[in-house]
Each structure stands twice: as structure tokens, then as C-alpha cells.
């Protein structure tokens, strides 16, 4: 299938250097609507670095990023956020002093600056309530986010990202810190999100696109439609879960490592 045609978010030839270290070396990536795209690789492969480039937190030395046809390479993070990109963080970045509900509300408000006053209020309440229900957060709506255990914190971060009504969702190791049951719950939600009827956010009609960085291989193989593999800042493979599992280069670089371990 032609992934490029339906790509909502695409990166081409991205290179990032930290001093002498080539954290990313001409990496290409496409994220398509209605799909969960996996991004995997051993520790230090450059996955988070690529996220930071996509989100505008890090400027690449080469390459370009496109979102829905627009070249957003030089856009600041908040502009990308408003254009429909939302993310979670490997190290939790919750609004620790606020309640769970406020975390989601603040996110909705940040993404809909025009609708803060008056008219937007019912929509906001409804959206936040929907998200809390979807993720099972109603029972902890009034708890301070900073007091939550990691697993729940990840759920709140996911909810917060979703409340921004994104068209692309970037998830950085969302399952770390979750127990088996929570991970299952999480996988269900992911599938539901991409399969769901068009939501009411940006260009309604297109389902959500998800980019997932994950170390839990079972989860990756289960939910991802396409997978890109990074190793030492290079893209070494890209394909369906089956192709990736059979790829010798990936085995050598990545799965081989886990075999040894």
C-alpha cells in the first residue's frame, strides 16, 4: 500500500547531532491516519530524539517535517500543537500540582484558544468527561496528578494528549510502568482510537494517526500496523509486524540483543 499518500505526518532525511554523536542519521518516517505506526529500537537508538524533532523541541541539522501537507520544520512546538500534534513523554510531564480533571481541561483549552470563553465551555466539559470515561479516570478526577502512581500518570498523560483533539498522537513508551492488566486495557484503547469514527477535532473525517515508541514487543506486534526500526540513529527496517519479525537486520540489531539477555 502507498503509505506516503495517506501520511498525515512525515519526516524526511532527519539528522540530529549531539556534539560528535549522530543521534539521528537521515531518518525517514511516515505516520498514516487510521494506523498505529510502531517506532522501535534498542536503548539510545534515537527514538525520543526523533519525537523531539517531530514535536519541534529539537532542531534537526538536516531534513524536513511535514504535517498534512504543510512544511512544519521550522514551526515552534506550540504551533504544531495547535495544528493537531499531541504527545506523551517518556519521563512523565504531568501538570503535577493540578487535579486529573484540570490536566485534561487545561489541555483542551490550550488546543482551542479561541473557544476558552463562553461558547466553548459545554464542549470542553463534554470532551473532558468523554476522555475520562474512555480511560477510566472518573474515579480519580479530583486527585492531584503529582500524587498518582506511574501507571495512572501515563493514562492521564494520554487523556491530556487526546483532549487536544489531535490528528497525530505521539506516544513515548506509554506502557512502561503499567502492569499486565493496565497494558491490555491500554492496547484496547489504542485500537479503539484509530478505528473510531471521525472525531470532532481537526479535519474531521480522518481517523487518528498514532506513532508508538514501545519496548514491550508483544504490545507492539499486537497493535501496530506498520513498524519502523531504528538502530544507532539509522532506520534499518520498515514494514509490517510480520516482516519486521522476520528481518535479519532487525534480529541482529534488536531482537538478537533480547535473545542474549
Amino acid at each position: 500500500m502507498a503509505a506516503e499518500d495517506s501520511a498525515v505526518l512525515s519526516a524526511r532525511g532527519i539528522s540530529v547531532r549531539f556534539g560528535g554523536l549522530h543521534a539521528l542519521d537521515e531518518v525517514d518516517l511516515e505516520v498514516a491516519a487510521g494506523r498505529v505506526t510502531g517506532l522501535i529500537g534498542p536503548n539510545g537508538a534515537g527514538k525520543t530524539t526523533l519525537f523531539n524533532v517531530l514535536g519541534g523541541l529539537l532542531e534537526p541539522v538536516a531534513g524536513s517535517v511535514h504535517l498534512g501537507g504543510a512544511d512544519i520544520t521550522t514551526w515552534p512546538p506550540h504551533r504544531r500543537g495547535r495544528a493537531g500534534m499531541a504527545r506523551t513523554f517518556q519521563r512523565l510531564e504531568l501538570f503535577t500540582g493540578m487535579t486529573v480533571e484540570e490536566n485534561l481541561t487545561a489541555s483542551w483549552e490550550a488546543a482551542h484558544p479561541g473557544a476558552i470563553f463562553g461558547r466553548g465551555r459545554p464542549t470542553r466539559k463534554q470532551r473532558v468527561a468523554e476522555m475520562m470515561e474512555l480511560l477510566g479516570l472518573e474515579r480519580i478526577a479530583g486527585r492531584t496528578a503529582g500524587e498518582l502512581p506511574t501507571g495512572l500518570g501515563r493514562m492521564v498523560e494520554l487523556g491530556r494528549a487526546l483532549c487536544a483533539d489531535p490528528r497525530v498522537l505521539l506516544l513515548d513508551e506509554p506502557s512502561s510502568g503499567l502492569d499486565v492488566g493496565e497494558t491490555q486495557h491500554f492496547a484496547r484503547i489504542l485500537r479503539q482510537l484509530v478505528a473510531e469514527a471521525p472525531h470532532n477535532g481537526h479535519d474531521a473525517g480522518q481517523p487518528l494517526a498514532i506513532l508508538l515508541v514501545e519496548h514491550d514487543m508483544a504490545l507492539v506486534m499486537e497493535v501496530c500496523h506498520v513498524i519502523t526500526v531504528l538502530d544507532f540513529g539509522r532506520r534499518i527496517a520498515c514494514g509490517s509486524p510480520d516482516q519486521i519479525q522476520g528481518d535479519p537486520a532487525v534480529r541482529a540489531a534488536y531482537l538478537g540483543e533480547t535473545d542474549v539477555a
Partner: protein
Amino acid sequence: MSTFWPLVVIGLFTGSIYGLGALGLVLTYKTTGVFNFAFGAVAMFCAFVYWQIHDTWHWTAWISIPLLLLVVAPLIGYLFELLFRPLSGLAAEVPIVVSLALLALLEVGAQLIWGGQERGFETIIPTSSFKFGSFYVGWDQLGTLIIAFMAGGFLWWLLRHTRFGMSTRAVVDNRDLAAIIGVSGDNVRRFAWMVSSTFAALLGILLTHSQELTTYNLVLVVLVSFAPAVMGRNESFPWAFGGALGLGVFTSVLHRWSTSGTVANIEAAVPWFLLFIFLIVLGGRLKEPGLSVRPMAVATGTLSTGDMEHMSARPRIQRAVALGVGAFAVAAVLPTVVPGPQVSVLTYGALWALMAVTLVVLTGWAGQISIAQVSFVGVGAFAVGHWAGAHGQNFVPAALAGMAIAVPLGLIVGIPSLRLRGLYLALATLAFALIMDYVVFNSVGISGGLTGILDHRPRIFGVSFASTTSMYELSLGVLGVVLAITFALRQGPIGRRLRILRDSPLAASTLGVNLTVTKLVTFAVCGVVAAMAGALYGSYLQSITPINFQFGLSVQLLLLVVFAGRSVLTGAVVAGVLAMIPALIVSLIGGGTIGANVGNWITLAVAVGVIGLGRNPEGTVSLSIQEAKRTLSVMRPRPRRYLGLGSPLAPERLEVSSGG
């Protein structure tokens, strides 16, 4: 030629003094992550101790100098280490505020012990001079230079060729690794504090050659070392020392053009201009170890299990509104039962509370630390002083003008915040406050110099507020309106926008928040409201001088707010109450010897309180609310939610899993 070189040489002398300070500052910052705002205060305190031992008790210099450098100063350093040790790993704001509290503590401590007046000082090096080429050099100047270089050399030797140096480098590079190979971080840090403190003492006694020995002046002079320390990015000793020499030469050469008045004022502010610009330019390249830790510290709160956490917001808001309205009503009828002088004191408290509100919003909610808030108060006060007219008839336009001036100033202080937070933002705002002190408030045209200018009680739309009671009512009214507005804002989108800025600017920006605009607007608005407070404060005081708005008062305001509770509006009110206690006591018992020192004692108490709060940077108000909740939840029967509402995500379960 003939005038240039002498100026360079003199510049090297003064520069070497700053260099000594910069070395001491970098040493503790590198090893402990604490930037010691109290460094100048330690220098001052040690100079006074020396004065006590040597000039009052007449011990010989051969005993008093070693006693000071090898016993007194290291002891102070030791105590500092004890105070700061439990704070490591906390948000950057905590050590900043604690070291500011130590600054206040030592300053008022010295005033209480030795009084505020200037002290004569027997110099340790002869002040006679010798001819060097075409100009004269004082022995004391040369001596200072030599001692500074020797101290620098000693530090170099210590770090390069001793076990301490090796351990220090190990600890600085990687704390955990150092612990594994058996280097004790605690020992290294303790030793660093002691050495740094000795440097401060040395600086103190050297400075008394060129400076008047007053508590305020000495601290101010040593503050200049902050600039070169930052030039060395707080990590490089040679750069810090070199930067200090460069700064000394630069200011000294500038001296050539200085006469007096405005030029001299600007010249005195040069280190602060440089520091401010430096901070903006270096921006993100300044690394702050504390910042890898969660910013600000709500997260340190304990898990609260009381019902109130789960109570929906509405009753909580209703109760807060009821309490607020009740308190306001009580405050409003106070003048009928309280005599005039005390009503005046209450006005003072209300206006300090008003200033404190702006700091609560800026620092407590938005997480932007500021040591410059009282400078904005000054802008409003002087605007009214100049433009309100003899009967205060133009009070409103004058106040509005002052508030308008505060807008660009607020934007200027806001600029460093775009790339800096925590320590470096604090330093930038400090630099701004000192620039305002030197360039604006010291300018005779604006402030009328030391004697100050007269300010006028307002007349608004024909209504005069000249009487004590009416001034109180006006101040209280404005405070009430501002509190009501900020309270309403906190519950809504704007309050949330500010709080996400504090909790995670990173996440906020990825969600679509324009950090640049949000921060600049916040600084500007808080500056404008502070200027409004200043307009009232000036006309309340009726006579204002630069001393009313010195940076030291910004420090005091910050300490009061932090002590009371920086992220709740109640904290601002409590800060106002604390601020008026000294005046209240004086008005009750009359001036006299006790009265004269009451202000110092209160400052001392607040400083001790802030230091004592340490791990609870949310302040006493939040602490007492937490305590009250805990007591209530213990007294109550078991919460209802235990009855059959079990679910996988029930809070009871969460606490178990969070423990693991």
C-alpha cells in the same frame, strides 16, 4: 595614555576583589548546586566579627586574622552545609529562597548586634602608597591584588593536586559514581562550603579598606561578584576570575568619563547591565543541575486521604468565597473599633498584601521567580508623587501613567524568563532590580535623591482620601477587588494556563501554549498591578525615598510570600499581616529602643521561618491547611466511599500500588 594605564591598574585591584568572590561562589555552586546569595552577607558578617575581635577587644591581628579565617568562617560554612544538605534534590527555587533568607538573616543579625551605623576599621595593610611609573599605587591595593591571586592559586592547587580536588571533580562529574568509588560527597561539600566561607571572610576584611563598614554597603559591593561568576557559567574558575578582572578594568576605565549624577549612576549599574545581558545571551546554555528535578514543589506533598480531596470543586469554592467575604467585612469595620494610628498600620498591611498578590500570581502560580517586584511598586509610587498634583487631584491619570510605564518594564524583566528559569531567572530579576535602584531610583530628578519627594493622598472623582480612615478604605477596597478578580481567574482558563506554565512548560508548549506570549503577558500584568499598589503605597506614605523600593525589599517581599504560602491567595493576605506586625507593635508600645528594632526582629523571624520550612516550600498556610485536613480526616468516621464502591481504579488501591 597617561590616564588610561593607571585606571587599568586600579581596575585590576577592584577586579581581584570581585574575583575572590566569584571563586567562592563558583566553588559552592559546582560542588553543591547551591548559588549562595548570602555570600556577600557572610563577607559582611565576618568583617564585623573581625572588627569586634580586633578593634573592640584589641586582640592582635596575628591572632584575630587566623581566628577569623580558620575558625569563624569555616564554622559559618559548616553551618551552611548543614542547612543546605537536606535541600539537595529539591526544586531549584528552594535553595534560592533559603539562601536569600540567610542573606536577610545575616544582614539583620549584624544590624541587631552591631547597629546600622558605620564603623571605623583599623586596616590590616598600610594604606600608604608608593610611586609606580607615573602614578601612585596604594600598598593596600597591591596587597589586595596579591592576596586575591594567592587565594586563586591556593584554590587551583587544592583542586589540581590534592585529594580534595580529585574528590571534588569526581563528585561534580557523577555523584553516584563518586559514591561507589568511595568518595564521600558530604565531605567534599562540607569542605567546599568551609573554603568558600573563608574566601568570603577574606573578601570582607579586604573590602573594609575601600568601603565603609556598614551592613548594607558591604553586602551590596560583594553582590557584584555574581556577574563574573555567571560569566564563568558558574563552573569555570579561570573564567570567573578573569571575568572579574575584566569587569574591574572595564568599570574603572569607564570612570574616566564619569562625573556625577546620571552617568555615575549608570556606571554603578554596569555590572548589573552586563549580568542581565549575559544571562539573556547565554540563555539555554546555562546548565542548572537542580532543574532535572521537578520544578516547584507541590509534588512533595504527602498523599492526602481526606474527603476534601474528592469533594467537588463547587462547595470548596463556595466556602472560600464565604470566608473571604467574611474576612473582608471584618476588615472593613475595623476602623470603627481601632484607633487612628493602628488604622494607618492596617493600611500598610493591606498594601503589602496587594504587592504580595502579584508575587503569588507570578511566582506561586506561574512559577516565575522574581526578586524585582518592589521595583514596580516604586514606579507607581514615583509616578503619583510627580504627577498627582498638590491635592492628589490627578491621582488616577498619574497612577495610570505609572502602570503604563510598568508595561515595558515588565516585558523587559520577562525577556530572560523566555529562556531561563530558577536560579538564572532569579539572578536576572535581581540584576533588573539593582539597575532600577541605581539608574532610576537613585536619580535625583526622579526620586529627589536621599531626601525623597512628597507624595499626595489621592482625590478620585472629587472624593478626597486624605484622612487615615478613607485611605484605609480605599486600599482595602482595591485589595478586595484585586483578590476577588484573581480568585475568579484562578478557577478558570487563565489560572490553569498559569499553573501549567509552572508545572510543565514543556508539556504546555506541545499542547499549543505559546510560552513566549504567556510569560511576557504575565510579567507585564503582575508589574502593572504592582505599580498600582505602588501608586497607593506612595500616597499612603506621603513621602517616599529610594530606600522604600530598594532590591532588599523585593527580597523581603519574596521571603514573606514564601513563608506565608506562595501559591495561595491566603498566603498574600498573611504576608500583608506579617509585614504590618513591626509597625503595629511600634504603634502600640511606642518607638524607643525596642520599637526601633522590631522590624529587624520580624525579618529575622521570617528568615528563620523560611529556612526552617525548607522541605515544605509551599509555606505555612498550605501546611496548616494540610494539618487541619489530616486532623479532620482522623476525627471523622470512615469515609463513605469504602462501602461497595470498589473498582480497579479506586483510590484505596492506588495508594498501595504507589508504595511499590
